[in-house]
């Protein structure tokens, strides 16, 4: 099933959620709660602009493993992090526009001296995904997105540990970029496409853009009682 095209079932769930909620105030709370759970299974439809079809499958698979959907709640895939990543690629950040990008590029120095490659985030993803899929094809006979879970996890670990070598750029560089941006998408305001239904904030118990706690100072060691709100005013 394609993630970026919603099924008819999902559409009906969404449409159905609104009608009884408006019709019966008494029933509203549990119905909205159930609808929210149902919505969280899949992200909203999105057609990628930067990633091509095979890159999109790679990114979706990576998101599902880096922050999985589990008993604690939706993961990065369900929270729309692939959409976040794709949209970030179209920003000045994605184009490397926030980084000093003049050479010479001295890449054999100490890690403490920071990022010294010429690659922009777009280039890191494009090359990193291609290298990754090539490596998976040559060792496993299939692209990353088609590997069994345990094999795919082992592959990500090989990128993370720096054991993987070869390719256009250091595999670890790609992995760190991917993990960093995945977390950003899971926890940033839903404005940017990820953290849909504020799934990341609900995991933490972070109240989003409420940003006024003058009263709750006087309730030490007592959990703040209100759920999250987004910049656009979404509460669920």
């Amino acid at each position, binding site marked *: 099933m394609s993630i970026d095209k919603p099924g008819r079932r999902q559409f009906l769930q969404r449409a159905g959620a609104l009608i009884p909620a408006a019709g019966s105030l008494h029933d509203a709370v549990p119905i909205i709660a159930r609808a929210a759970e149902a919505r969280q299974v899949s992200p909203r439809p999105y057609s990628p602009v930067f990633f091509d079809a095979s890159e999109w499958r790679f990114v979706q698979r990576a998101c599902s493993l880096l*922050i999985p959907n589990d008993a604690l709640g939706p993961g990065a895939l369900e929270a729309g992090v692939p959409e976040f990543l794709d949209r970030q690629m179209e920003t000045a950040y994605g184009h490397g526009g926030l980084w000093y990008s003049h050479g010479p590029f001295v890449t054999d120095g100490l890690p403490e001296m920071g990022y010294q490659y010429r690659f922009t985030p777009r280039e890191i993803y494009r090359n990193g995904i291609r290298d990754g899929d090539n490596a998976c094809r040559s060792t496993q006979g299939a692209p990353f997105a088609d590997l069994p879970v345990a094999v795919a996890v082992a592959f990500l670990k090989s990128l993370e540990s720096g054991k993987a070598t070869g390719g256009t750029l250091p595999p670890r560089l790609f992995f760190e970029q991917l993990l960093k941006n995945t977390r950003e998408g899971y926890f940033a305001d839903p404005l940017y496409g990820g953290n849909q239904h504020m799934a990341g904030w609900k995991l933490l118990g972070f109240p989003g853009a409420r940003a006024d706690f003058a009263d709750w100072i006087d309730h030490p060691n007592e959990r703040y009682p209100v759920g999250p709100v987004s910049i656009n005013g979404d509460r669920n």
Partner: protein
Amino acid sequence: MTTRKKPVDVVLVGFGWTGAIMAMEMTEAGLNVVALERGDMQDTATAAIYPRVIDELAYSIRGKLFQDLSKETVTFRHRPDDVAVPYRQQGAILLGNGVGGAGFHWNGLTWRPLPSDLKLRSHYTERYGARFIPVDMTIADFPVAYADLEPFFTQFENVAGVSGKAGNIGGRIMAGGNRFEGPRSSEYPLPPLKNVYGDTVFAQAAEDSGYQPFSIPAANASQPYTNPYGVRMGPCNFCGFCEGYGCYMYAKASPQSTILPVLIMRPNFELRTRAHVTRVNLDASRRQATGVTYVDAQGTQVEQPARIVILTAFQLHNVRLLLLSGIGTPYDPATGHGVVGKNFAYQMLSSVNVALPASTEINPFIGSGAGGKSIDDFNGDNFDHGPVGFLGGSGIVHHRTGGRPIGQSAVPKGVPAWGSEWKRSVQQTYHRTLTIGTQGSVMSYRDAYLSLDPTYRDSFGQPLLRITFDWHDNDLKMCDFVTRKAEAIAQATKPTSYQTNPKKPGTRFDTRIYQSTHTTGGAIMGTTPANSVVNRYLQSWDVHNLFVTGASAFPQNFGYNPTGLVGALSYWAAKAIRSEYLRDPRPMVDA
């Protein structure tokens, strides 16, 4: 082609805290003042409005208010014989940009250094003997004493609406305050901010350990406040979005929230934004500044003649502009000669992450920029350094600025960085992790300095500033010592576990991880042209109508946030300019 503007009395280069203070003082003296700011106009209404400002990705992570590194950055190297490389992405330091500078996005911790911090070399020499100071350590006394500066600390604190509790008023030790501080002439203008729960836990543990914790002096108004200029501030509501953000509550002191509303109304003041100063111009004698040259938003080169030039940019930028303008002799670490760029210093941080019992609820997102609790027993020379064999010290603090999910959620060391295990851990850790931090001094050394980079350039084609800096044994020893003290307080919270993040011997300075933007030195103040760039009134020894404000004047760094002293030195120098220099424009200290 260069456009020539009408001459003014004073031109200010940069409009952050010291630019705003100097503009206020110089316009009050009746002078025509132009402030040149390379960034955009920004204030609460345009750059800090709720709810758009509550956007962690745009502000803290992508750095909306930070210097655009794609246009200008610095280069770093550890040692004078290394090749420096550019600081390409935001990491260890977060420089500001635009009106307010770093004073718009800072936290607001507004300390005074200890009286002994200001006479460091003579103090250590007197108490421990000259041989106690390592030979490669180039520390010096400030050429101005705490008592000289006291009225100006008070003035800045009153303007900034600092919330705190005095520990020493006129020599009388006050309960609840910092008993180690220098004598103050008065109480803080506002009472301390309320404690978040973590403050209470830390304070209790510190008391149980025999210390007397006190509230960190915070330029976050604890109550509605009207400052001496008549500018009104609102009360901090602990929104948890302070450092990296403008304050939508008008509670965090910034040039915008405390000075600009009054200053901008003055007919003898002009703030010109998108004006990037490329050099200070000198006359043929090279002893007199004639003004500055800048590039405007259209890319046009503009000359702004002025009778007095004041560099009021950030520490690093002040030093770079001196070097680019060929003012003063650049420092040479091989010979020790020259002064411009000398004595670059920083600060040394460590932390202990304490896991409180599982039922604890710290509501980590409830935080202010500068509220919190501290102990000062191991700062400066508040303890006997004889047995420990190092100079300097550190505050030990709990200071909760928020629980922003991207940057302020973490898992303990050893937990995987992703997968279901990470998810479980990040959820559990978030509500019960208390961080105890140390922020300590960094001394100045013969091999830590600023110079122009021979290779890398900014978007105007000018050389970047090169920072040559690494940790030294003295400061690593200090950090180890105070981190153990912090660890003991962590144990006193009766935690389920804790992890210490020390700096081990041999740790290299790491540009990748944010530490602090408390960079100092490079245009230090001193007693002679041979040992300093500016005199005790921040006046250039070489060019008497040029003044250089800011932390570039510090001969070394101490264990407190620098802004309190930066503000005080600005008011101190402004007074000297107004009362002496304007009447008789000449060097105010004989060389």
